[in-house]
């Protein structure tokens, strides 16, 4: 099972180049797509989900030419957009029933069994009769997963699903996603590095429409071993320093700054070596430091 994306290009009518010769190959399992806001994540996700055209390039999933044969992909696709609404005043059960019909499940009996199952999986059985439009953010996202599961998809695309969720809801959501992602290809876009770390077996970092790095999260961290240095300084000092290799800065409670930088060797005596993490890797690649 693999998704192969070659040389995708897309320029919007306002001149923004959303996808810029993008190449990517994704196998089974959870795939994390990391990138800052405006990197082109959603454009890529929508394109794979057959909801947007490209100017150039090709996408292939399990022998399906996605751009040419959208319907065939939709058969095996589950998509959760970055934000979505639902028909007002319609219950989860009812709405899932509608999606099940849209996804081609014609038998009412089968739909009912299926809906019971997916509601159980996403843990919404208790509120199945309630209108989805009144759900909290996390419940709504889990509902989004429920509708994905209806057609037993081989390719699942979830676009920034954890944005705006409280920690408990985020956990609950990721647990659900982990279960369903085991056997299929799941593309998971986020700007939260933690999500990828906890969930993904493979990942890519995307910025300005191009893949900057594709690797396993553990490899990404391993590559930086010994190259991450940390120190504490005042704001004034930080302002006067050369910021090119700064990976991150965090305020301490006493208003000093904890600064991490990327360097092959110890930059100065104020710095001490620190354990590299995925966030470091993310910034290294976004800022193209290596």
């Amino acid at each position, binding site marked *: 099972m693999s998704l192969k994306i070659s040389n995708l290009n897309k320029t919007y009518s306002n001149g923004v180049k959303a996808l810029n010769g993008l190449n990517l190959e994704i196998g089974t399992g959870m795939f994390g797509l990391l990138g800052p806001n405006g990197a082109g994540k959603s454009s890529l996700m929508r394109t794979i989900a057959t909801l947007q055209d490209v100017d150039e390039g090709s996408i292939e999933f399990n022998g399906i030419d996605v751009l040419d044969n959208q319907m065939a992909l939709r058969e095996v696709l589950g998509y959760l957009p970055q934000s979505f609404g639902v028909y007002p005043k319609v219950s989860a059960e009812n709405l899932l029933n509608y999606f099940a019909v849209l996804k081609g499940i014609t038998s009412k009996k089968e739909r009912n069994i299926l809906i019971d199952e997916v509601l159980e999986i996403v843990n919404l059985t208790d509120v199945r009769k309630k209108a989805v439009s009144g759900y909290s953010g996390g419940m709504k996202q889990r509902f989004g997963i429920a509708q994905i*599961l209806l057609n037993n998809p081989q390719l699942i695309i979830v676009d920034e699903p954890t944005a705006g969720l409280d920690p408990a809801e985020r956990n609950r959501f990721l647990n659900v996603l982990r279960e369903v992602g085991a056997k299929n290809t799941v593309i998971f876009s986020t700007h939260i590095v933690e999500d990828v770390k906890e969930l993904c077996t493979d990942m890519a970092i995307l910025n300005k429409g191009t893949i900057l790095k594709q690797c396993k999260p553990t490899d990404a961290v391993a590559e930086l071993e010994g190259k991450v240095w940390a120190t504490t300084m005042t704001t004034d000092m930080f302002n006067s320093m050369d910021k090119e290799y700064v990976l991150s800065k965090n305020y301490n409670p006493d208003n000093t700054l904890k600064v991490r930088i990327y360097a092959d060797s110890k930059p100065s005596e104020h710095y001490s070596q620190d354990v590299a993490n995925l966030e470091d890797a993310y910034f290294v690649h976004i800022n193209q430091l290596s």
Partner: protein
Amino acid sequence: MKTIFNYELTNWLKDWKFYLYLLFFTGGAFLLFAGTAGFFDPVNPNVKTVSYLNSPFQLVKIWSFIFKGILFLIPAIVGVTIFKDFRHKAHSLLFTFPIKKRDYLAGKFLSGLSALGIIIISIAVSIIAAEQLPGLHPDKIGDIGITGHLQALFLFVIPNAFILSLITFSVITYFRNLYAGLGVIIILFLVGNIIPNAFDNPYVISLLDPLGENAFSFATDNWNQFDKNLKAIPLTTTIIANRILWLTMAFITGLFTYKKFKLHEHRSGTSKSVKISKKEANNNKKKVKTVSMQIVKGPKLEQSLTTLWTLSMYNLKYIVKSWMFYIVVALGILAVFFAINQVTNNQAVAIMPVTNVILSIPAFFFTTIITLLTFMYGGMLVNRDKTSQMNFLVDSTSISNTKLYLSKVLAIAKMQLILLSLLLIVGVAVQIQNGYTNFELGQYFFNLFVIQFISLFIWALTSLFVHSIFRNTYLGIFFLVALWFGTSALPEIGIESRVALFNFYEPLSYSDLYGYGTQLKGFFLGKAYWLSFTLLLSIATIITVSRGTSLNFIQRIKSSKGRLTMVTKMMSLAFISFIALTGFSILRGENKNDSFSSKQRASAFRAFEKEFSKYATITKQPKITDMDLSIELYPKKNTFEISGKYTLVNKTTQPIDTLLIKTGFDEETSFTIKAKNKLVDSDNYVKFSVVALDKPLRPKDSLTFEFDIKSQDPSIFDTTQEAVANGSYIKNEILPRFGYFLNTKTNEEDVHTTNYYAKDADLMNVSTVIGTTKGQKAFAPGNLVKQWNNNNRDYYEYATDTPVKNSLGFLSATYKTHNHNHKGVDFEVNTHENHEYRIPEMVEGLKASFDYNTKYFSPYLFKNANIIEFPKTFGTYASVNANLIPTSEVRFIANTDESDVDISFYSIAHELTHHWWGYQIMPANAPGAVMISESVTEYLTLNIYKNVFGEEKAHQFLKMQRNRYLKGRNRDTESETTLSKVAYENQYISYGKGAIVFNTLRHHIGEEKLNSILGSFLEEFSSDKGIYPTSNQLIEKLRQNVPTQYQYLIEDSFEDVVLYETSIENADTSTNANGFSTFIDISTSKKSYLDGTEEDKNLNDFIEIGLYNENDELLKLVKTTINNTQQKVIIDSATKPSKVVIDPNLLLIEKDIENNTFIF
């Protein structure tokens, strides 16, 4: 507030949609006004009516039409101004700003209202501009000034715009739902429709109508054309009260919303968030599973159909399960119910609730509602995913575009079918309620689910197409309404072909005798054309669907190319060729029919008149004395053939050398004259020939004229055939006639030898052989001589034994016959088998008329009188053709139980009276001829009616005549003529006023006296003498015989147009020695309205005053002479009166009789 106001108004002024609305309305109003004022049409010299379009009256009417469109604009502009905040969720951010509720709401409302105001002012300007166009018809534009515009705007348009805007704005703001605004408009439309039917009191009707249109009609109810051209709208209390009432209503609605509205995320009273239950919150450690189910998919087609059905049900539930739908449906049913009730229980002329009547009354109204709902729900379904932001979820599923589309089509079709079924249920319910049990379900089903549904379904496809193009519900609805209105306005600017008038078809007429007849072919052809057109649009809708991110229109067109599969290409090709095929057939049918279109006809007649008017001076023509006809009717083929022979006699004193021959307009006629002759001139379109006889026909000599007539094969759109499957009715107008037929006046010297009914015949002998399809019975004037069967066809031979006038009818159908013998005369009624309800009343009418007229005048001259039903598609009248009384279908389904006047009895009594007044005496062909025939007949019918039904019912009859006269004179667009000159078309004068003034004369001089005057007149001019009287001769006869004190009535009634206005200013009662004295202050005026002027006439008139007790019983009736406009009258009575009434017997003609009553 200023900031919000300015911001929103600027927003509108930058929005292209605003300019689209502006352009549509100003352009539409401009074209409408210019078109109605004759800018596009050639001036028709025959229309002499002066009707100023820029008069206050007409401008209010024009604005009232335009306002129907503005209604839909109100939610689109005033509603959208606030709703967009809710839709774009801008309100959650906006409400956190330091703005006051008052400023927010007022700013939004006033800016929307101002944008609407700009459009309204622009419309007014464009109408004024259209008024200045050169080349408008001079009779359409009066030099009136700006009053009309100002009155229309400030009394109606602007207040209405304000009222409806405020109500709509309030409702949208309260519910935070834009569709609710449209719902309000539809609901107000329905309420406006229900009120006039549900209430009798004109004040109530005037008050309850939110647009004030009823108040306006009520205020101008008594206006004639002169008033309509010149008068300003009076500020009556009802108009002012209506305006105040609805402004108050609007303010109350606004205030309510203002009080309830909070600058909150959700509207007050709705808290929708779902709390996570404890169980669920603690449950997240539970082992999650994956989907275990394996979906087994069945056969593909079956699967597709199941999916389609399920989705459509889902969509249907969305439409149907809403309070708005319920309210609209409930009000719609109520409206239909009242509308039917209005006809079936109408006091003046009630009709039985037969199925075709039930279906025809609400059909237009109800389909209007269904069409509007189709426009609205089409938009809601198309934009639903996007509006609720669920489109990405839906778009990424594997459902095909076709299925998604078809599920919406199906849902709307189902909604339409549900509503049509409701109409069926209401119809049957009304029938049951009226005790009518002949439920013709087949007719219901065919009318509702075939005829009505096809048109609605075409609208469903159109609605989905338009909405999928615009992707903005309001813009889409607006476009659809514009298309709908625009189509009905296209003929105004000269576009009349069915291939251009979208989904348009004239309403089908239906007769119980033969159903829809040949109209169906044309109807289905037209519908097939538009259906295939909209099916092509459906393909376009499907392939231009954009899933996922929005594309602009051009991108959608581009992306659709990829979806043009072989199948869609083939289907499109098939539809295109079908459109071409049906379109071609329509055009060919129309071309064939076009020669009969009114426009073509008018221009042909103009050309004819120019060319042939030189023959108008030839007035001496022979008369037909004998007629032999052989008619072959082919009802199933809608054709007939006639061959015939006339004997023509020169009854003049001079030789005749030229024959002017007019033959049937729609038929092919060939003729031979049995004398040497030469065709001098002819017009093949008008079917007029001028023949010169080699040897002039000398006085008293005769000539044989033979002819053959063949009806044309009807074109597919021709709906005027004489021969129909059941109920054919051929009249003598299609037979060859003599004389220059466009001469309406007869020369002074020939007047007394030319009767009003036929210039080319006095009384004549007619014999007819008429053949028809087997099983039908055929009728012709005279007695049945022989009947036989030949070649599987039925033949009947008729011959007159008493000569008849040239006013003939030939009929054929399957009838049920009822026979009655009355004093040696056979009374026969031939009717459709389901139309037997009113036969007893009709026979009573024959008997009563027979008895009355034979008592006062002369014997009945035929052996029988035969009432024969003809389809209502030929007309709603009854007529006399010798011994036959052809009577329209509608007279057979009159509901006499519900009417004030027994119309079945009355119309038959009237027709038989014409045997004397219209046959035994025939008026000369001169102005006022119908005073002798119709006025006298209507007066005699009133007496007959009184003899049978009593004084009280006769009073109702008189009231009906009074209404007929007063209403008719308001409608008359020319200045009212006197009875002495009344023309045929002014029945409100000949029937209405005629009955009243003869009745007044009778009241004063006595029935015996008046009838004896009439009787001696009838004897003097009996038609067998061939000398015909004019109305002036009858008036002279009356003048000679009426006592001196009543002489003023002769001039007032017949030679003048006189209306009284009397009222009781005050009244008082006191006791005297013998009982009571009542003092009454009477104000009287008598005015003459001759030739459109208004002039006071001197008073020296008899007026009756009645005193009544509390039980409404007459205590005393006094006839008094009134000479002063203000006069005190004292009446003594034994008991105490509680009511005084001036002219209780309706002897005077008065517009307002409400003020004739004084109650103590």
